[in-house]
């Protein structure tokens, strides 16, 4: 059975676990580095990126996860998770995992009163729009040449993929639509099982 680790230092990690479990995948909460053994993939949930980044650093999760991702472990980040994955944060903050060649802008849609829901087109998961929930969401300002843009909202990049790294600005874990989690498992994690291990 596939086993996915969900970084569980702060934020909506249980919702990701629930969704992954419903898709028949085994999950484990990652709070310390000993939780990183035998994982087929990693999920970085939404939450507060400064809290998550700090706690990951404090408990030695940054280096080992970066190394795993560099060696091919698939990773999927939502909202704060996307910020944690970016190589550059436009406000000049120190990047965290820095595994994706993108520049991310935090809270770029405004404060909480500007948070919104919208139907989003994302071709890789099919033609039916995705019910996207944006909460104090970041967006991607610019991408490196190997990064594929999967979706934009009003011209802003909100979903990207670079090889086995997937990052989105919004929160599929707060909806009942599991197509993006399915995409991660079937198109990214599954193929990596043969190549890496």
């Amino acid at each position, binding site marked *: 059975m596939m086993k996915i680790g969900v970084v569980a230092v*702060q*934020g*909506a990690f249980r*919702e990701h676990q629930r969704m992954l479990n419903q898709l028949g995948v085994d999950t484990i909460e990652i709070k310390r580095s000993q939780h990183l053994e035998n994982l087929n993939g990693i999920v970085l949930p939404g939450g507060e990126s400064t809290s998550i980044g700090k706690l990951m650093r404090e408990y030695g999760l940054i280096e080992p996860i970066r190394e795993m991702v560099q060696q091919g472990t698939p990773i999927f980040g939502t909202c704060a998770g996307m910020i944690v994955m970016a190589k550059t944060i436009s406000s000049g903050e120190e990047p965290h995992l820095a595994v994706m060649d993108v520049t991310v802008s935090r809270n770029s849609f405004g404060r909480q*009163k500007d948070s919104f*829901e919208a139907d989003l087109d994302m071709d890789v998961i099919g033609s039916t729009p995705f019910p996207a*929930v*944006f909460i104090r969401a970041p967006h991607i300002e610019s991408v490196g040449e190997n990064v594929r843009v999967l979706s934009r909202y009003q011209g802003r990049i909100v979903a990207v993929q670079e090889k086995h790294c997937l990052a989105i600005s919004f929160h599929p874990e707060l909806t009942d639509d599991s197509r993006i989690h399915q995409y991660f498992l079937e198109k990214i994690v599954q193929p990596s099982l043969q190549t890496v291990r």
Partner: protein
Amino acid sequence: MATNVGTERVKRGMAEMQKGGVIMDVINAEQAKIAEAAGACAVMALERVPSDIRAAGGVARMADPTIIEEVMKAVSIPVMAKCRIGHIVEARILESLGVDYIDESEVLTPADDKYHVDKRKFTVPFVCGARDLGEALRRIAEGASMIRTKGEPGTGNIIEAVKHQRMMQAKIREVQNMSTDELYAEAKNLGAPFELLLEVHNTGKLPVVNFAAGGVATPADAALMMELGSDGVFVGSGIFKSENPEKFARAVVQATTHYQDYELIGELSKGLGSPMKGIDLNTLRDEERMAVRGW
């Protein structure tokens, strides 16, 4: 593409993102930065922390907007602020300032002795205090997107928060096992809408995120509230009334994340200096209790 702001999902979702985190009371930009650097997932901007409100007496109102704006400029994490119970205009002012969450709070002197703010009419989400399941569901019916225990604010004494969280969890377990006819009667007993009670019956939890607040003074207190089923923790006077706020703030954040790692919490608790002094609740007169405010 359709865009919707202030939907139930967006308002409740914001609270989901706070889970497993610590929200700290701050009274200026400097404290807000300390809280952010310690890993707080949000700050509550106030003119005075609850223990000082208690000491000052008189009527406690919404903070001066200058303070709230100063805090909003100082940090990138969400900023919350308190309005008085039932004070629609204070709530509207806070919304117009752009705060990320409003706490309709019993820590301030209530403005209305019968009605709470109709929170569904707002784009900004609200958190409200509750002592038990009935009170929590009444607030959720009014549109609260997040619930916290009331505890007894500004006392540094955890007993009331424990009592409220235990009552809430025990009642939820009881409701889960009720038959439909019992649920109709229970809705009446609790003074709670039947539909929301039915939802609790079906899901075994509140429909919104449920934090602990009111009396958290140490890392162990924060971990205790997590152990009892809280989704996260508010710390009011506990941080900045302690001897070493930076250290205390970091220790409380880490104890909340690792709430079942007792060896670690032991380490975190070493050499913290003295926590806030605290008050034995038996010495409080009835009119000094804040938890009884709210209807």
